């Protein structure tokens, strides 16, 4: 389970997240929606401490992954990022072969057993629904793959280190409808084994893939509820105005 308790986050003087508390159950998909600049990506990136890399940021509150406050002293951030994988908006494969992209996380973590690596690469590519398309060209450059395949390769790369949580920041926004559909199908499959949190600007995508949805605006979590309820009968007028396109 992932949990946030009264999170406030600042970019220098800018108060980007205001008292956010929520719980995301294991093996569920949670979608974050909201207008640009509302804080949803900032909130997502807290869960593998990606915001640590930005100077001048400050956090109060607790961010708990599998029972542990990930901002507590002594937390190994590299270990955390193995546990909490991330997929970005634009596919970002390394300039390496397909095989080496997936094997990368294992190698940097000191795994040297070739058979083990081969097995994990195959499992991860299969888990990302890419194995059948690339099994005969594993030594080819990852850049030879289509955008949708590259994104699934990035998912396979994240899966290779056996995380328990997958964070996805608009993972399909740069993809065509067929590739988008494959990513969405994959999300449905992956939730059996992983807890998934996705940021999306696509309302229908949030409705299709998630069990719960959180609506953010101006740093506040306006509403967090079951996706079905959110898209049929949201509690807050602000939510209704946003999802029906009447916002502003």
């Amino acid at each position: 389970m992932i949990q946030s308790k009264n999170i406030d986050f600042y970019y220098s003087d800018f108060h980007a997240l205001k008292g956010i508390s929520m719980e995301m159950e294991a093996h569920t998909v949670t979608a974050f929606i909201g207008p640009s600049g509302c804080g949803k990506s900032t909130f997502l990136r807290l869960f593998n401490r990606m915001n640590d890399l930005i100077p001048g940021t400050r956090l109060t509150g607790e961010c708990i992954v599998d029972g542990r406050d990930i901002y507590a002293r002594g937390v190994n951030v590299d270990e955390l990022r193995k546990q909490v994988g991330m997929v970005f908006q634009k596919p970002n494969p390394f300039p390496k072969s397909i095989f080496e992209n997936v094997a990368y996380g294992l190698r940097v973590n000191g795994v040297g057993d070739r058979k083990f690596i081969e097995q994990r690469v195959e499992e991860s590519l299969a888990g990302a629904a890419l194995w059948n398309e690339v099994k005969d060209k594993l030594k080819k450059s990852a850049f030879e793959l289509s955008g949708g395949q590259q994104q699934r390769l990035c998912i396979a790369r994240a899966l290779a280190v056996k995380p328990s949580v997958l964070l996805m920041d608009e993972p399909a926004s740069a993809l065509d409808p067929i590739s988008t559909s494959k990513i969405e199908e994959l999300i449905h499959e992956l939730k059996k084994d992983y807890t998934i949190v996705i940021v999306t600007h696509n309302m229908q995508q949030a409705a299709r893939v998630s069990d719960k949805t959180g609506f953010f605006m101006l740093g506040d979590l306006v509403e967090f509820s079951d996706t079905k309820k959110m898209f049929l009968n949201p509690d807050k007028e602000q939510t209704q105005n946003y999802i029906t396109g009447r916002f502003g």
Partner: protein
Amino acid sequence: MKHTEKELTGLKEQVGEMWRLVLSQLEKAKQAYLTGDIELAREVASREKRVNTFELKIDSDCENFIALFAPVAVDLRLVLSLIKISGTLERIGDFADGIARHVILDACSQLAGALKEELGIEAMFDTVISMLSDSFVTLESENTKLSGRILRKDEEVDALYRKAVGILTGHIEKNPAQGYCILETLLVLRKLERIGDHCSNIVEEIVFYIDAKILKHSKNRE
């Protein structure tokens, strides 16, 4: 007004036009039935096709709206309600047409005016007409305060129907020669009773749209 809102307003206006047509059909069917005006009944029968055309057009426009705009929340509830309401209005239009055809057949001219009065047919007509117009007001004003009153009127219609069936049962025993006419009258009463049910269904759809509450099959509808 945003494009989505314009489309939704257009759909609502179409349903409003259909509503006014069906209301007019029902009022004319009442007048034709109570006065035996065959010409007026023919007018009702001839306008039935317009009601059907409305239903087809609204269905098609709602399907297009769903396909093109992927509505959610209150917009989705409105479109789903409008599809069901237009289908229900079409059924009410059928009943008005059925009553008009009963007048055209002139099967019951021998039924005494006093008996018609005793059966409470005019009261049934008036009640279902007020249910239909009040439910229209409920949708137009987007205020569900009237809904409880409309649903209670359906119970009044049911009570009038049950009473009328009892009267007709006694009448057929005393006047077996009028059997056919009495059965025809029973069919008209049955149509009015069904119109009351359909008006209740419409109110349920409006409450679903406005308040997101499901009254259908609920015991505590008020």
